[in-house]
């Protein structure tokens, strides 16, 4: 694991959203950190808050929602919580690169690939438009685009999903960011293309020594690229630790359930699928006890009323928000 000090440190982050009708808390006291050259994966199901967690502090939220952020996000010795829009705009696409899930809706359909990449280089690296367009070609080569000269003249609709995602990545790294946030970068792609994009992201991260936060729901992607993992449920981090340990010996009952649900090679055709009982919680106001209590087979009475905080487990590198595993992690594993 990286020994360098973290480039991004999130402490006790809470995000409240107020819509016309309701007050929601999609992010509830979340803490984590990422160092240069390191990849943190944030996994969770829909509504777990993993996207809001990363995008709200950058000022990326739907219109018509008012938002309140508390806690602290230190990025590169600057505090992001409470930062003004102008300063945030400089960071976005500058020292923080962003890759979205759906490249088709993230790209401008009416502009050539050349213009879209060059625009970022002009804005953040203060290049002239000729310099920026030359840089666009270099970037397409960096993301291993086939026939890069021809691609520059094309429009997004002329490209396949995999090529569009490569363009998105080229835009995200145009200003050589210190942090790359990738929101489900391969979810919309086919599995053979996904393998290529993951290999590309790993390679670029090494070359640029970027810190990377990868938001995903696919444990296979996590295992292939990340060094640390935060498992989210209902806006809270349930388990946090090295990927190796969390994926092979999960401690929190939710993580255990998620990993157990992945089909294994020894499962015979026609055999029952393993999963979790019940349904994930609907996004709402803060929950008083543990958010997972209704689906947890280890729950005791206090789980309903007292919120378990993230605390070191028997393996001190792994943190889990569950008093049961923290009290007797060995016993639970045996059971």
């Amino acid at each position, binding site marked *: 694991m990286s020994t360098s000090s973290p480039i991004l440190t999130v402490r006790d982050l809470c995000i409240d959203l107020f819509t016309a009708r309701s007050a929601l808390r999609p992010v509830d006291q979340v803490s984590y950190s990422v160092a240069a050259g390191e990849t943190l994966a944030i996994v969770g*199901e*829909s509504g777990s808050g993993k996207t809001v967690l990363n995008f709200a502090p950058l000022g990326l939220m739907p219109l018509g929602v008012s938002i309140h952020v508390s806690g602290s996000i230190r990025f590169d010795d600057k505090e992001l919580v409470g930062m003004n829009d102008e300063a945030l705009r400089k960071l976005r696409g500058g020292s923080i690169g962003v890759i979205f899930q759906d490249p088709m809706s993230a790209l401008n359909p009416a502009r050539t690939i050349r213009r879209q990449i060059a625009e970022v280089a002009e804005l953040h690296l203060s290049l002239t438009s000729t310099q920026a367009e030359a840089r666009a070609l270099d970037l397409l080569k960096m993301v291993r685009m*086939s026939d890069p000269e021809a691609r520059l003249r094309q429009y997004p609709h002329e490209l*396949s*999903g*995999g*090529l569009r995602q490569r363009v998105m990545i080229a835009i995200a790294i145009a200003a050589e960011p210190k942090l790359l946030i990738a929101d489900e970068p391969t979810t919309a792609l*086919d*599995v*053979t*293309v*996904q*393998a*290529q994009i*993951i*290999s590309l992201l790993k390679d670029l991260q090494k070359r640029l020594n970027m810190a990377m936060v990868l938001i995903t*729901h*696919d*444990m*296979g*992607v*996590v*295992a*292939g690229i990340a060094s640390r993992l935060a498992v989210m449920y209902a806006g809270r981090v349930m388990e946090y630790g090295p*990927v*190796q340990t969390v*994926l*092979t010996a999960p401690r929190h009952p939710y993580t255990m*359930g*998620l*990993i157990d*649900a*992945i*089909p294994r*090679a020894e*499962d*015979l*055709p*026609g*055999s*029952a*699928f*393993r*999963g*979790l009982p019940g*349904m*994930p919680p609907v996004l709402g106001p803060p929950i008083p006890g543990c958010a997972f209590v209704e*689906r947890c087979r280890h729950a005791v009475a206090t789980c309903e009323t007292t919120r378990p905080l993230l605390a070191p487990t028997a393996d001190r590198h792994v943190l889990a928000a569950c008093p049961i595993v923290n009290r007797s992690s060995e016993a639970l594993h045996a059971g």
Partner: protein
Amino acid sequence: MPADTALLKVENLVTRFKSVERGKWVKAVDGVSIHLNPGEIVGLVGESGCGKSTLGRSIVGLEKPQSGRVLLDGVDLGTLSGRKLRETRRAIQYVFQDPYASLNDRQTIGEAITEALIIHGVSDHTEQRRRILELLDQVGLPAVLAERYPRELSGGQRQRVAIARSLAVEPRVLICDEPVSALDLSIRAQVMNLFLTLQKELGVACLFIAHDLALVRQAASRVYVMYLGKVIEGGGSLDVYARPGHPYTSALLASVPSADPRIEALREAPVLKGDVPSPTNPPSGCRFRTRCPQAMEICAVNEPATVALSSDHSAACVIAEQVHRGEVIAPKVH
């Protein structure tokens, strides 16, 4: 497995669409033959644009095939028309991917199911009510949901309603197009288990169209793999997954990331380069040859014949036997 006892048989089916390029056609399904035995779950896998959904839609008549036959119990649906065709076709029902789009917002769940029951000739109100409760129970939903609207339901519940509605006409075959890919991970298992139960208890056969290979492996006894409009491999799931005969199947399996970091640490460079070519202008000869690590000159000339690897396993590749024996591109075991 003899195709003669098959419940559903598709022979040489071709479905084409007009291309955006003038005068050109896209053969989304290009001469596909598959079959389903009674009460069997069969997987249909492939990447986007391979024609798997178009094939499913052509079977139920949502697309009009240009040529080929769809037979149910040996009866060619193409020879039927009008009422007879509608009645026969009712035995084949379709479950859509998106449970948010396939239900009418303004109908209660009970009304949505009633509509299907009326089509099935159940006009008596008491009998309708009884069947609604029975169907909701079969898909594991509480009776109170009959009075609710789709917006009050979760994605998993909606998909169960869509399944209940397709069961209302007592079908013998379900064509399920990515029925769980819009659902959360922890909910998927619940809906997949519902399909397994329906198959066991009602004997409904199921063509399971999906891109998730692990899901299909566990649900289906047999599997077909499609690439650019063609079935390139078919056979028993265990055999196809353990010893694929087509380099594409092999590469597809090798591309699925494992959730075990120890296995991922050993991962080598991706097996396949580039994207699937445009179906408007597919490569000559073998359609996979432009991405195939094993491609030879002959592959550009002749379309490969289907090679039988066992009584129940075949692949359309000139080196299928070597691939099957693991002599080239050994599949990753996970």
